[in-house]
């Protein structure tokens, strides 16, 4: 084949979030973005993108230039909706500061680690019936169940209602193959949680929902008060949405990467002390949320170009995580890596509030999987990637267990 018939090698590098062919393996494109277009501009959908670790590390922290106030997804920023108060992921300081502090207080590392035994029991409940099976599905058997179960535990939502909650959130993020997603505000306003909240008001417990009902905080106007019902519903909806699909993707990538790297899987099975480092390496290599977007509030100069105020900037976290300037042999999966932390959970005031929870879930899930199924090989023929432009991972990931 001559180089002329191989367009990807000679054409200017192209990336958009909707192309299934790019989504199948985006890493060669990310590499070219880092090398050939560290400031990328996409004409078709009119957005800019940064892919180098140093740029992302620096710019995500610059919330004055890169605002979250219109949302953190390309389509949402374009839709220019009014963001309700309490939607902390789509707020800038000072409003964000007070709201985020309330949530940060209940999602601390120690509190999340305290859930470990409960999470372990939940994994056992999902996996024990499969012992002896020749095939398991990382998504259908665990990824679809565990994250919703854990959020349900936190919020005190009864088990039988959890699947319905997950389905609704997943559906709101799904896109038609190759197209931008439809945006509607209703999916972010806490629909579906009202009845649990009202029930919880009458039946207080020691869960997060009760804590949110009782917490006193100083809002951005300096008033000390409790959260309103509307604010609590928004918080809960954000947490349930953000904690569900992403963690399911993490479980899927755990299955995929440790199928592709059986020698490393055997090392972990023989020495579970390697699990935390393995989860960090999985998070680095395959971030469930490969990019985030911000609204550009003022002209921004980089690489002799100007990104005009009013633009959308995308931050390719998945590209930064493999930047050779930061990570030696960045494309290589290596659980023994002695290196700096990845940016999968973002950087700065909007970094993932649930990162400690995601890590506990990932570690316990891997531990409980290996105890029951020390060997597996993914059946790629029968696996499929999810059609979503906001997360990247598997909808189904079956594997042979021997």
């Amino acid at each position: 084949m001559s180089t002329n018939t191989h367009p990807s090698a000679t054409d200017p590098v192209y990336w958009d979030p909707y192309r299934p062919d790019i989504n199948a393996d985006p890493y060669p494109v990310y590499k070219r973005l880092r090398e050939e277009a560290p400031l990328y501009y996409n004409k078709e959908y009119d957005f800019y993108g940064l892919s180098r670790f140093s740029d992302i590390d620096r710019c995500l922290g610059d919330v004055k230039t890169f605002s979250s106030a219109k949302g953190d997804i390309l389509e949402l920023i374009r839709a220019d909706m009014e963001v309700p108060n309490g939607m902390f992921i789509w707020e800038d300081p000072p409003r964000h500061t007070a709201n985020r502090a309330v949530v940060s207080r209940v999602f601390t590392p120690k509190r999340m680690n305290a859930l470990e035994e409960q999470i372990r029991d939940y994994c056992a409940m999902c996996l024990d019936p499969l012992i002896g099976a020749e095939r398991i599905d990382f998504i259908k058997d665990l990824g679809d169940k565990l994250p919703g179960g854990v959020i349900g535990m936190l919020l005190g939502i009864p088990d039988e209602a959890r699947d319905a909650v997950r389905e609704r959130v997943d559906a709101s993020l799904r896109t038609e193959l190759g197209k931008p997603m439809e945006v509607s505000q209703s999916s972010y306003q806490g629909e579906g949680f009202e009845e649990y909240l009202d029930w919880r008001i009458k039946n207080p417990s020691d869960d997060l929902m009760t804590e949110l009902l009782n917490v006193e905080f100083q809002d951005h106007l300096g008033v000390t008060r409790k959260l309103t019902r509307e604010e609590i519903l928004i918080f809960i909806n954000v947490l349930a949405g953000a904690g569900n699909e992403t963690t399911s993707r993490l479980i899927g990538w755990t299955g995929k990467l440790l199928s592709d790297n059986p020698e490393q899987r055997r090392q972990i099975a023989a020495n579970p002390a390697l699990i935390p480092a393995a989860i960090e390496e999985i998070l680095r290599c395959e971030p469930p949320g490969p990019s985030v977007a911000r609204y550009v509030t003022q002209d921004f100069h980089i690489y002799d170009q100007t990104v005009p105020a009013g633009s959308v900037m995308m931050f390719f976290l998945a590209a930064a995580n493999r930047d050779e300037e930061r990570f030696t042999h960045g494309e290589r999966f290596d659980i023994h890596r002695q290196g700096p932390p990845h940016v999968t959970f973002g950087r700065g005031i909007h970094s993932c509030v649930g990162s400690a929870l995601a890590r506990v879930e990932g570690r316990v899930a891997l531990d409980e999987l290996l105890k029951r199924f020390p060997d597996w090989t993914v059946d790629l023929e029968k696996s499929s990637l999810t059609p979503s432009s906001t997360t990247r991972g598997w909808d189904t990931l079956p594997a042979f267990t021997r």
Partner: protein
Amino acid sequence: MVKVIYVESNGTEHALDLSPGLSVMRGAVENNVRGILGECGGACQCATCHVYVDPAWFDKVSDISAIEEALLEDVCDGQPNSRLSCQIRLSEALDGLVVRLPARQV
């Protein structure tokens, strides 16, 4: 420059010469000291830059804010000399500071 000695939980020492004004968290992250994550970038939110300040230095570092105090109750393996290193800003007065890193942040 301000010398800071970071001691990993396995005993490995990193002696770094850092600029005044930098935070102890930033100094670690920029120089690949393992064991400090600093995901929120210094906003005192994520509690992933937890360190133990050497007792000889504990009273010399800046005071603890109410927000930091609340988060310190919920770090992994907290001790009386625990601090969030993003809240410790380096000055000449801290030349020679010793901080020990916990076995885990999360």
